[in-house]
């Protein structure tokens, strides 16, 4: 795959477009889904099934004035929302949607995604700090401790998968899982791991994704009944819009990663179904995971900050460490 400048530009534009479209329509999907769970119709006025709601919301947000509170740190205040959106879009570059659809495959793709993901929490810190608002400040402090607490088990779990695959290349990890769904990393039977603890690894990874993307029940950063709106209390207009889209873009990235690491990426669940293009399977798995995100959000109450840290330090980290050692042992034996 030779890359010309044009190719790069096209790839980036497609990545941005994909991220933005997903972010906008996931808002719609979330609102419709939540409404269905609560037996309401949800947005249904603008366009068929309310499908014109996201662009109209966007227009509304863009038409609003961006108010910078007095005494706020202007530069950081403006940079923060951009920083929230930027890493999510950049991460799309290396995500393989199928054998052929990938903007730029790297042999350290996992590392790159994690590097970008950790800058995401910087955005929250900047936003909270620069807003000159006590609620926002408290929220950003929470966000830091949350990010620290959840990146560790997430990385450890990822290392487990990397060890099994023997590669940091996302495409290689997916290729290792080819075959029926029993070869996927989540299932311990036929995969190359033979590790019966892999479903637990999957749960740990999924929980960490929830926490990393600041989704309920771990949405302590914006805890609307406690901290009003958390780090984006002072944001209006498109500043708020970017935070909002960034959240959904992060969800997409998190789900992509879960799909690749555990659910066999673009591989069909059964071999005879592989005549359907891989990208279909990838997107199906991706959106099923996102639906689960939405489903979880509208089911559970929020955790406390200490409950969240307890969960991470007392349950997730020990379990993931144990799993890592166990997998290493298994790999050595077999």
């Amino acid at each position, binding site marked *: 795959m030779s890359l010309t400048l044009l190719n790069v530009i096209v790839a980036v534009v497609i990545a941005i477009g994909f991220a933005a479209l997903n972010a906008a329509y996931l808002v719609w999907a979330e609102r419709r889904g939540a409404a269905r769970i609560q*037996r309401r119709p949800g947005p249904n006025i603008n366009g068929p099934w309310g499908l014109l709601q996201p662009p109209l919301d966007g227009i509304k947000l863009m038409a609003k004035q961006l108010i910078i509170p007095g005494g706020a740190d202007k530069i950081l205040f403006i940079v923060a929302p951009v920083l929230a959106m930027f890493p999510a879009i950049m991460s799309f570059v290396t995500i393989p949607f199928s054998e052929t659809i990938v903007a730029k495959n790297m042999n350290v793709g996992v590392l790159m995604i994690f590097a970008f993901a950790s800058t995401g929490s910087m955005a929250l810190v900047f936003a909270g700090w620069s807003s000159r608002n006590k609620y926002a400040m408290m929220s950003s402090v929470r966000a830091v401790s949350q990010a620290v607490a959840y990146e560790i088990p997430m990385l450890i779990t990822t290392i487990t998968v990397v060890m099994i695959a023997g590669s940091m290349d996302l495409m290689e990890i997916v290729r290792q899982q080819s075959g029926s769904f029993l070869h996927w990393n989540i299932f311990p039977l036929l995969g190359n791991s033979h590790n019966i603890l892999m479903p637990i690894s999957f749960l740990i990874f999924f929980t960490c994704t929830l926490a990393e993307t600041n989704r309920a029940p771990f949405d302590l950063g914006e805890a609307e009944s406690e901290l009003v709106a958390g780090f984006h209390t002072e944001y209006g207009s498109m500043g708020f819009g970017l935070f909002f889209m960034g959240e959904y873009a992060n969800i997409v990235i998190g789900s992509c990663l879960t799909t690749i690491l555990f659910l066999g990426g673009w591989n069909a669940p059964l071999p005879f179904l592989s005549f359907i293009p891989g990208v279909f399977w990838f997107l199906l798995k991706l959106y099923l995971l996102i639906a689960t995100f939405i*489903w979880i959000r509208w*089911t559970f109450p929020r955790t406390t900050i200490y409950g969240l840290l307890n969960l991470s330090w007392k349950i997730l980290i020990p379990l993931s460490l144990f799993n890592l050692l166990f997998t290493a042992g298994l790999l050595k034996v077999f």
Partner: protein
Amino acid sequence: MVTYFSEIYHGLISLFIGMGITFKEFFKPTVTVSYPYETLTMCDRYRGHVELIENEEGKANCVVCGLCQRACPSACITLAGEKPEGEKKKVLTKYILDFTRCSLCGSCVESCNFNALEFSKEYNLASTRKEDFIFDLLKRLEDRNI
């Protein structure tokens, strides 16, 4: 150690039970009445603002006794009447309801001994001007007959 793992296990199970319930709710029909497009009929005893009841001739039943005015806790009723030559009863000439102050308690309807007041079923009341809620009930009665 056992409690540690059983706590995790039971916690997880409780989460899945909760998700099961919201999953079931997802497929149930919606219960919302999408208001401006559909409306509900108000029940018989619904208490809107008061309205005058007319007699067979299309005139108000009211005999201007003023009981409703006195019963009203918020002083939102102003009425006046006159006694035309040769008539036995007083005739209502003015009945103003200041709906901005009315608390829909129904004291006026209850105090009326002449079956002259009733509750309307109107609930679509919205305006940006205060004057729109100072109702001239006599005029409304006449408008109804046209």
